[in-house]
């Protein structure tokens, strides 16, 4: 599992490549843009091929910490396997989910430029 971060203005794209489950969530949680609660991130899941409840829990924890600090966690490019996990758990209700990373970045940029 690999994480790569790309900065687009005030927003950081965090691409998660591989699998996100019990043994790999700590990698995600060590990523600088995830650690910083004030940093708004788009988590790009295009290259994530497996997510279970441990991985989802790490994303929800990230969302909560960032919202508490006034920042956001947006999700982009889920495949059908990932979407299934979001749907069963209702997680799509608390996350902003985008089909497209650049649309997510645009939206996140608007959010961060609010006074």
């Amino acid at each position: 599992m690999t994480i790569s971060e790309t900065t687009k203005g005030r927003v950081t794209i965090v691409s998660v490549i591989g699998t996100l489950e019990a043994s790999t969530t700590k990698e995600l949680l060590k990523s600088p843009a995830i650690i910083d609660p004030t940093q708004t991130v788009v988590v790009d899941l295009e290259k994530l091929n497996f997510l279970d409840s441990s991985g989802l829990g790490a994303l929800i924890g990230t969302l909560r910490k960032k919202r508490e600090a006034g920042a956001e966690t947006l999700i982009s490019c889920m495949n059908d396997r990932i979407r299934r996990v979001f749907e069963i758990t209702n997680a799509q209700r608390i996350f902003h989910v985008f089909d497209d990373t650049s649309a997510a970045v645009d939206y996140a940029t608007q959010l961060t430029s609010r006074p």
Partner: protein
Amino acid sequence: MNRIITLTLPGELVFARFASETAAKAALMLINSCNADANDWKFTHAFELAVSEAFTNTVAYAQKLSSPQPVTIDFIFESQRLTVTIRDTNAPFSIETPAPEIDNYPERGFGLLLIRNVMDTVTCVRENGTNIISMSKQL
């Protein structure tokens, strides 16, 4: 004739992916042996996800012993059905444990919900201090 694959793994989280990938492969084998539609990703993914959750729980809630105990997973092939069984000697629990309310941002508690949703039948029996979790799905 029923066929059985048995996999014994060290009871460590780092082996969860080994377990779930093996489950996906077992599901794909059943699909192929039935000449069923291999593009039905939901069947394969159901086993991959359910085994990831069940194995992780078995390890996460294991009694803290000096060294982790091995975890054994059985894959039982019937004509059109695959059943996965995992045993552990953890504390008893209810397979019907409800998931938490998503609006509270819970970071855990979704494993059994996912298992129940993606499988046809899920049971957990307690026998002589052992939890026997059985998860089964028809093609």
